[in-house]
């Protein structure tokens, strides 16, 4: 059984400051949905014990290839970035509950911040017949990745950088709040830092727009057994902890309680 999880890396290269794109040949390609993730065991270093959960960025169904776009934030992702085509990875997946679009939904707003843009990319290819407006926020000009793809696949695109080196200066949530009543999306799909998601959550809530957000949390098994990747979900009298790995990572924004101390580090 172990061997069936081994997948070959086709390519792995830098696409922006600290961001890498890896193509992996895998039989899971045709089962993967936008918003799901793969759970990667790191090769060559046993001391890096846990798998790394990384969202699916895109899929090439013809070639049977899964793409991940990931930020280097620690030893694990650093090792991942050093791997080359021909290397093999032990992968579980596709895991988790991804995004979904009801048949009546025609207009969708995609809101992404930084490395949180990566999980949104496959939405555009998976549901091709929807009208998309993309709101993308990056740190600076050197952090921009896959902008061409979003420009090509969406009807409208808003771009911000924190320092104004490309697009509008500022955070993407400000632009989204300014434009949302003009765009009038039937559905919002968002991923990014928790403060960003909190604002998207309240913007969607005030206007009663359906909204799905993809959460990140430090993860263990990835299959719903170990109970470590929890997030607060509203209950009649308070809240309970749900599992980000199997109940999420995509949640309806009005069901979750986002705490500021929840980390987002990619």
């Amino acid at each position, binding site marked *: 059984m172990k061997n069936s999880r081994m997948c070959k890396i086709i390519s792995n290269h830098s696409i922006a400051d600290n961001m890498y794109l890896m193509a992996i040949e895998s039989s899971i390609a045709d089962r993967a949905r936008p918003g799901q993730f793969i759970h990667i065991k790191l090769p060559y270093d046993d001391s890096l*014990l846990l798998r790394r959960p990384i969202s699916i960025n895109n899929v090439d169904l013809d070639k049977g290839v899964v793409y991940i776009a990931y930020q280097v934030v620690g030893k694990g992702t650093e090792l991942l970035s050093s791997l080359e085509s021909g290397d093999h990875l032990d992968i579980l997946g596709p895991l988790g509950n991804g995004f979904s679009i009801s048949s009546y939904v025609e207009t969708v707003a995609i809101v992404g911040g930084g490395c949180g843009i990566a999980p949104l990319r496959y939405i555009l290819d998976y549901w091709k017949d929807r009208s998309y407006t993309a709101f993308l926020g990056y740190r600076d000009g050197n952090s921009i990745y896959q902008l061409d793809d979003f420009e090509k696949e969406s009807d409208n695109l808003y771009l911000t950088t924190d320092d104004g080196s490309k697009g509008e200066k500022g955070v993407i949530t400000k632009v989204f709040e300014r434009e949302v009543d003009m765009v009038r999306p039937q559905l919002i799909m968002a991923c990014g830092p928790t403060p960003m998601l909190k604002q998207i959550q309240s913007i969607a809530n005030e206007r009663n727009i359906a909204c799905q957000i993809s959460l990140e949390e*430090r993860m*263990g098994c990835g299959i*719903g057994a170990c*109970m470590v990747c929890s997030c607060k979900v509203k209950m009649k009298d308070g809240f309970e*902890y749900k599992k980000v790995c199997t109940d999420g990572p995509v949640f309806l924004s009005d069901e979750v309680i986002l705490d500021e101390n929840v980390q987002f580090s990619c």
Partner: protein
Amino acid sequence: MKMSNLAVDICGVKLKNPIIAASGTFGFGEAFTSYMDISRIGAITVTGITLEPRLGNPPPRIAETPSGILNSVGLQNPGINYFLDAELPELRKYDTAIIVNINGNTIDEYCSLARILDSHPIDLIELNISCPNVKEGGLAFGAHPDTVYEVTKAVKANTKKPLIVKLTPNTSDIRETAKAAVEAGCDGLSLINTLLGMAIDIKKRRPILANITGGLSGPAIKPIALRMVWEVAQVVDVPIVGMGGIMDGTDAVEFLLAGATGIGVGTANLVDPTACVDILDELKDYMIENKIEDIRDLIGALRI
């Protein structure tokens, strides 16, 4: 060649092999059924159960440290009633022994849990007096021989099920707590629970775990676990379930040689959902290669 005998006896319960999924890493088993046949595992220890449902600690609840994992789940579970109504009937469909890990804030709570379980189809009770992630109960009972004796004696009086006491390494001499549990009438021991630890994020100047401290598990603690299993095996006569960083067949053989009868697989389940059966297969290979016909010939067979 003749099939090797892998069956072991744990407190009067016959397990088809010594592999035991450790509590807190295996849920109620359901997450693993699409990855392997869980009936191949000797026993499954379900996630720690309390009388009432428990919310658990705030996230983050996990941090990776070199060759190890810190966790601070804090016994999130749906409570004993939900377990008995919804989870146990599902789990009983599989041909594996079921061990229920029980947790209380008070001796009375431990006793109530044992009493309730007495009339249900479970095989063994594991008395968890060693969880480092809860304020009450847990370590408060497990760190001292006198409290270990007190809670074990009380629980034993409330159940006819075989009772395993899960010991903490966070104590000055684990042989003393082990002896206290045996004197109080327990049928077996499991060791070790996690070691209390901590991890810090220097960018944020914050602990990584929201709970600040957590329990360390994985290969990082294996030498300590192995030493403690060996030490305890020298001073007690009850079967020991050894655990602490068992990741492969070699680790399993080491624990058997040190004196363990059962092989607890915990952290490995978080890394590989097939870990339990992978370790079992490697253990079988070792026995065939070394012409060992009965696994019991390995238990405590360390040459000093």
